């Protein structure tokens, strides 16, 4: 639809900041107590990327498997069941997240596990920073920004911190497949940044 290109970013935004925040509040209420699982997963991820830690192949695969399930869950429970009600692109986002989930699943099953956390040096520290950003800083920032802990965005349950933490893990991995794994998270981060810009500044 070529007419779409006549619209600015702010024109494409169809909901208010209040509605967006309330989306997370209602979602968290609906899925309680799954947040406990997310907190445990955050702890596992933090331990997995701790500097100097040597992971067993089993744990390395488990991290990717859990992340794959997270992306598939968000595709269905967040995008398809909830975000789609206020965002016309909700179904497209659901497909994107499902594809990423399947890619992570394939990586967890087929990839050599010793490569998944093998990167080192400065780039590994950048990867660790993204993981920490996703599992700790983003959830806390989401509460600080709204003043409402019920709207907290947790890794594995909501899109932004999950995409950010996934980018961190991808940076920590070795092999050419990592570039493919970074396409959807990077795309989502760009979409989310544009959404936040339009919601809170435009």
């Amino acid at each position, binding site marked *: *639809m070529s*007419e779409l290109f*006549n619209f600015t970013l*702010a*024109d494409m*935004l*169809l*909901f*208010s900041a*209040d*509605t967006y925040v*309330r*989306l997370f509040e*209602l979602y968290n209420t609906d899925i309680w107590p799954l947040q406990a699982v997310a907190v445990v997963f955050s702890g596992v991820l933090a331990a997995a990327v701790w500097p100097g830690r040597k992971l067993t192949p089993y744990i390395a695969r488990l991290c990717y498997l859990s992340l794959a399930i997270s992306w598939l869950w968000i595709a269905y429970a967040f995008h398809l069941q*909830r975000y789609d*009600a*206020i*965002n*016309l692109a909700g179904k497209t986002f659901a497909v994107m997240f499902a594809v990423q989930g399947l890619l992570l699943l394939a990586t967890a099953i087929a990839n050599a596990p010793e490569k998944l956390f093998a990167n080192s040096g400065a780039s590994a520290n950048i990867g660790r920073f993204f993981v920490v950003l996703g599992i700790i800083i983003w959830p806390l920032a989401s509460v600080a920004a709204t003043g409402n802990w019920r709207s907290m965005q947790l890794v594995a349950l909501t899109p932004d911190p999950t995409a950010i933490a996934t980018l961190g893990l991808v940076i920590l991995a070795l092999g050419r497949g990592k570039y493919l794994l970074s396409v959807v998270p990077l795309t989502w981060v760009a979409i989310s940044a544009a959404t936040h810009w339009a919601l809170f500044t435009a």
Partner: protein
Amino acid sequence: MFEKSPLSRRRTLQMLSSVSALAAMSPIPLSAATGTASLTKTIPSSGEAISPIGMGTWITFNVGNDAQARNARADVLRTFFANGGRVIDSSPMYGSSEAVVGHGLEKLGFPKELFSATKVWTSGKQDGQAQIKDSHDLWRIKKFDLLQIHNLVDWETHLETLQAMKAAGQVRYIGITTSHGRRHGEVADIMANHDIDFVQLTYNIDDRAAESRLLPLAQERKIAVIANRPFQRGGLFRRVSNTQLPDWAPEAHCTNWPEFFLKFVVSHPALTCAIPATSKVAHMKQNMAALNGQLPNSEVRKKMVKHFETL
């Protein structure tokens, strides 16, 4: 022996709150008589009188499945009708807005004053027809008063469909829409060469691009005009924040800024209706106050523009 229980203040308050709750649940706005809607405009193609302050639903009514927010929007609708409002405008492009309007209308018992306006926003004849059917279902009504082609998307195809629907009595009026100055040339061509009842465009005290061509053309072709973004997406309020109305505001028959901006819009002789959007009952009351009193004349309108441009 029964003990006589005096009516305590607490009990009285409980009873009063129960009455209020019943009133809030009533399908018919109990306060309909409180609105002293005096201003009306006329739809040129039919001569039908219409309230010049309607309401839009872009962003404000897209609250998804949030039951609390849906009920809050129903309260906004109740206030709208209770104060003389008629025209509600929506679009399939506005997410869940049509469904939320439908929820509110059902809760209010489908007020007979409703003038329902929505749009078709897709490509292809079959998809357009399917979308119009969906809109009926979402609004929970059998017939729209006005169907418009949103931002001219595939307008040749949809105009044919809408004209056929009008001829068959399935819709009362048809029209086209555009927003903030886009494709005015194409809009003018359609207005000049096709049979439409309404055109919707952006018009406000800060965006008066339509004055040069589209509004005179609408008068010439007897096409009703709906003004979207009468507050320039809130930009007008940001511009006048911490600023008092001018001393001569009574000349414009205005007591607050919303009234100032809305009366400017609907006082243009070509304008039929403005459709401000809000999610708050208090703001809706302020908007609907613009239906009271008189409209500024052309001299005062010039003064309003001159003053606004100094801000």
